[in-house]
């Protein structure tokens, strides 16, 4: 086994161990479990976005829409249909994926800044629907009057509402399954084709790869995982409000991916950890947290354009 492969495997093991043991070490260093849960959930969304951003080379800026659709899908299922955690996750994911699949054909032919502009503009439709359709969605006040439901496993029932550790492990399991699927996809011929499109789209086209179709599939998968993250996010808060769909939320996901490193698998998760922790701290310290978050964006672009993992990799290589 050469060193690079060994390093990669070691990093994977380390990340999984850290995530698995989160409820034990995080409180010890001054955090709290809910913060860890939020990091994992938003990290999943950022990793889903990175499927497009980092691996397909498509500049998507509107992922808040699918994240928010997943959140509303899960919340409304539990609130109006069946008080079932699993079904909520399923409905949320399907709703977001279907919306992505429908919007996909309208945007896949666009590239670069145009793609970014159209995706972020489209995301606003869902914001206004959630905002205006207040009889169903609760409008600006958000969707309230529900909580996450106990998990029935047949042989036992787990109370995830009052036990943050149990809830964390539910999120962790969902995250692990999603990440495993993502990693498998990226290793498959399909994932390799995405890389080829990212590196040289024209060449890929000449080789007979149906580029638009691949981007559409990649887009839909990315939307599906983003909405899964959104569904989990609804459970984290026991609440959904239209801000989960607002265009500023889309920017948050992009900055997480860039900050951690778009070209590395775990980058967006690390970006999410830093971003969420920082936002949590700053908003507890000052009312003007938006300025700090904005300043953070500017500093990341100016000084860490390759992201943290990108920088480390460069240091190791040189």
């Amino acid at each position: 086994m050469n060193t690079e492969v060994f390093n990669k495997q070691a990093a994977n093991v380390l990340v999984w161990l850290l995530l698995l043991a989160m409820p034990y070490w995080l409180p010890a260093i001054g955090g709290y479990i809910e913060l860890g849960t939020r990091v994992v959930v938003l990290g999943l969304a950022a990793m889903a976005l990175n499927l497009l951003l980092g691996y397909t080379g498509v500049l998507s800026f509107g992922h808040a829409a699918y994240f928010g659709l997943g959140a509303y899908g899960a919340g409304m299922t539990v609130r109006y249909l069946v008080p079932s955690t699993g079904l909520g996750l399923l409905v949320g994911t399907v709703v977001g994926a279907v919306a992505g699949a429908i919007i996909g054909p309208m945007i896949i032919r666009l590239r670069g800044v145009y793609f970014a502009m159209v995706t972020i503009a489209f995301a606003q439709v869902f914001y206004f629907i959630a905002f205006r359709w207040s009889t169903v969605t609760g409008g600006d006040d958000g969707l309230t009057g529900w909580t996450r439901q106990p998990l029935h496993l047949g042989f036992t029932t787990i109370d995830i509402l009052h036990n943050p550790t149990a809830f964390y492990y539910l999120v962790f399991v969902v995250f692990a399954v999603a990440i495993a699927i993502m990693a498998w996809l990226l290793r498959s011929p399909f994932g390799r084709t995405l890389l080829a499109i990212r590196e040289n789209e024209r060449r890929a086209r000449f080789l007979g790869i149906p580029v638009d179709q691949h981007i559409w599939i990649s887009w839909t998968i990315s939307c599906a995982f983003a909405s899964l993250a959104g569904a989990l996010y609804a459970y984290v808060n026991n609440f959904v409000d239209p801000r989960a769909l607002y265009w500023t939320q889309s920017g948050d996901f992009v900055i997480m991916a860039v900050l951690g490193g778009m070209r590395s698998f775990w980058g967006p998760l690390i970006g999410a950890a830093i971003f969420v922790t920082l936002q949590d701290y700053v908003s507890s310290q000052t009312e003007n947290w938006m300025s700090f978050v904005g300043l953070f964006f500017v500093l990341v672009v100016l000084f860490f354009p390759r992201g943290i993992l990108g920088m480390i990799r460069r240091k190791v290589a040189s």
Partner: protein
Amino acid sequence: MTQVVLFNIFNGLIVGAFYALMALGLSLIMNLSGVINFAHGGFLAIGGYLAFSMMPYVGFWGALILAPVLTAVLGLFVERVLIRRLYGRDPLYSLLLTFGLAFMFEDGTRFIWGAQGLPFQVPGWLLSPLSTDYFFLTGYRLFMVLIVGIAVAGLFFILNKTRLGIRIRAGTLDLETVSVLGVNVRLLRNMNFGLGIYLAGLAGVLAVGQLGLQPTIGSSLIMPSFVAIIVGGLGSLPGTLLGGLLIGVASGVTTVFFPSATEAVIYVMMAAVLLVRPRGLLGEEGRF
């Protein structure tokens, strides 16, 4: 009924004029420098707030002239210090940077002028209705349409008749050649950015007279401006103008018949345009 419809069409036209002014500035910057300026709405808000703070000293007319100029100066500075560094890099970075700036501007205006909406006094004689039948035709509204008309005419004059404008248009098509011909491209991009921000500042002064001062005014107007550009066609300034007016009128008319879809309708229009004519109404083929 006719009156209500007319009222809303007229209202939509005015809102559309704001969108168009803002979208024209965005388009200018995007066409020449490939930067989507998310902070455009922030500049608009700053233009409006500057006018508000200036009014007691220089009056409405002074503010109308000075505030956009000062906003443009701020724009020149921001381009010089921050945005210039990102030309030629992946467009993702300029997107993120201006995104951060948008946050900072919105929060900055909130910090300086407060989160509460502030009233913006326009001269009294502009506010009285001109006709009892068409109560909505106040002088201020006609005045706004007039100012927007003058600004747009001025912009097209600059672009078509002055050396700066011709260089901007040439640079939009082929910046490298323009550079080789001895034009200072850095300065050109700087001036072009300033011109775009001037339009945002002007839209800001006019918009706060109609909508009132809110720190969030920028972030609420920027998405419709994107839609205006997409509907009108990327790369085409007349298209952007048309797109802005169209979506303004469309949301005005929708207010009459289906008020809860007032905002959503423009995105539906965008989807329709993208399906039928992906390059936009007046966009050039194959540019994006």
